[in-house]
């Protein structure tokens, strides 16, 4: 049993520090995720100061953080939106998966790591950060841009793909053979399809059973339901995170809207605990040796994201500047990459360098990605595009449907 007063002091001091760091990062228009990770690194095992009594608190907080990140993601989309997106943007999602997951896997194998690590690293490089990117789009006033739906579609499909990928990774990490892994995947597919169908058909009924009139009861009901389903899903080896995601999808309408508002502060708190815990669990002395590989991986997979965005936007009939904006905006990786690396961290079958590599990788892509996303708005970039466009295309690009 940890000393309670020590625990209060440690947790309080760390949360206070995170709050200050969050303010600093927002001043520079950056996501606070990199700073949270750095704070975790600084106070973890082998850092400047080592926390002792609050480790357990942050470990549990981190679990809840992942569940809240996922349920909020589910609340953001309706089942109908997910299905529509799958129908219209599946090719873009497929290109995205191939172009970004394969380099991660190939990179792991190239470094001589085993195939389990390759599967995990593929996920780390695959998924863009919807949180970071949504913030960038809003900050740069690009919500109205015509390439924005393309970017959002890619993010939605990635999030949906996670509902299948996470159970697979969970099974693979548990040392399962390909057959058991396939079985876990099949269970996940059936569950997700069932939940989508139920949510589309009976979403009103489910949501009606939960009243929006009493915020306190709503908070407890939705939060309790989410933890319960996540726990059961974890017991069934489908991954707790996916269970939470499905709860978010099954709830719709005004209930979803209110639940999202109520859960947001909780999510912010526990997600911060999650990023800190990931940093805490990583020894900062492991980072310098993996910085060069992380940099190489970041350069390659940021380039493949640009290609992904370019192709997806071209398919939607967007002109060259819009295609580049889409590509550059998709670069940052964030919460999901850390969730995936966090699942794998400490597993026996995974290369121990994976967690420090993922930390460095996310730091690089969030910082570089946020900066590069602003590139298409600069005057010289526009001039460059105009100069290139003039000899090549005398006619203006038609705004295709």
């Amino acid at each position, binding site marked *: 049993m940890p000393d309670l007063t020590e625990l209060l002091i440690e947790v309080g001091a760390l949360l206070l520090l995170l709050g200050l760091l969050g303010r600093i990062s927002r001043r520079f228009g950056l996501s606070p995720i990199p700073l949270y990770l750095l704070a975790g690194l600084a106070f973890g095992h082998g850092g400047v100061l080592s926390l002792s009594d609050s480790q357990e608190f942050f470990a549990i907080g981190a679990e809840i953080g992942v569940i809240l990140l996922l349920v909020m993601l589910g609340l*953001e989309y309706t089942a109908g939106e997910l299905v529509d997106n799958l129908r219209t943007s599946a090719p873009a999602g497929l290109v995205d998966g191939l172009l970004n997951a394969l380099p991660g896997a190939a990179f792991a194998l190239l470094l001589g790591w085993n195939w389990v690590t390759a599967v995990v690293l593929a996920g780390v490089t695959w998924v863009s950060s919807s949180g970071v990117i949504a913030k960038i789009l809003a900050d740069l006033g*690009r919500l*109205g*841009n*015509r390439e924005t739906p393309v970017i959002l579609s890619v993010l939605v499909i990635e999030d949906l793909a996670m509902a299948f990928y996470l159970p697979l990774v969970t099974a693979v990490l548990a040392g399962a053979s390909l057959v058991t892994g396939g079985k876990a995947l099949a269970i996940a597919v059936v569950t997700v399809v069932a939940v989508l169908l139920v949510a589309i058909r009976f979403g009103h009924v489910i949501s009606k059973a939960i009243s*929006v009139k009493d915020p306190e009861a709503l908070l407890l009901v939705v939060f309790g339901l989410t933890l319960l389903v996540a726990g059961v899903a974890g017991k069934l080896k489908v991954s707790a995170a996916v269970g939470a995601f499905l709860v978010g999808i099954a709830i719709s309408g*005004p209930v979803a809207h*209110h639940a999202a508002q109520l859960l947001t502060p909780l999510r912010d708190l526990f997600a911060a605990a999650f990023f800190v815990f990931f940093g805490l669990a990583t020894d900062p002395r492991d980072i310098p040796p993996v910085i060069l590989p992380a940099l190489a991986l970041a350069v390659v997979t940021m380039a493949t994201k640009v290609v992904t965005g370019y192709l997806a936007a071209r398919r939607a009939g967007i002109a060259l500047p819009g295609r580049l904006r889409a590509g550059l905006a998709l670069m940052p990786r964030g919460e999901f990459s850390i969730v995936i690396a966090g699942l794998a961290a400490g597993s026996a079958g995974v290369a121990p360098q994976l967690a420090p590599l993922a930390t460095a990788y996310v730091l690089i892509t969030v910082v570089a990605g946020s900066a590069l996303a602003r590139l298409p708005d600069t005057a010289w970039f526009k001039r460059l595009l105009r100069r290139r466009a003039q000899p090549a295309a005398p006619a203006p690009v038609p705004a295709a449907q």
Partner: protein
Amino acid sequence: MRGGIVIAVRVRVEQTALPGVGVRHDLITEAGRRIGVITHRTGQRDLVLYAEDDPDASIADIPLTTDEAIALADLLGNPLVLGQLSSVEGAPGLRTGQITISADSPYVGRTLGDTRARTRTGASIVAVIRDETVHPSPDPEFRFEAGDILVVIGTQRGIDGVIAILARDDTDV
């Protein structure tokens, strides 16, 4: 959208879903400029203006509260919708009002008949505006959605009564 009149008869309005954000409607003017409106899930609306040289890029994204959006719509085009109604304003004591069904209204998903608004307040709901469409004289079976704008005629007291009914779910106002 049965029985609806599309205001934008001669203008093609394109609708695009923004997953996780809301919906964007946009149109290209005769002069070739693109204008759009983003309707957020939260009810916030953004007026979006696009660049001339790059029709995919927005140069201004102006957030509007529900009231501001309604005021702007009034200024721009509501003669089409409310021009006829404004004549009743001349009648002493009679007013028109616009009431938005908020996402947390108990009447989201319920019918006009359920509100028993006319019986309880004396004010009439004469039209419902949903997206670009005006539904004049909605029948009692008309089912409300969040974001619907109701056009109400009655005394100030009556209109206030309808606002109160739509905001909370008590049966005796």
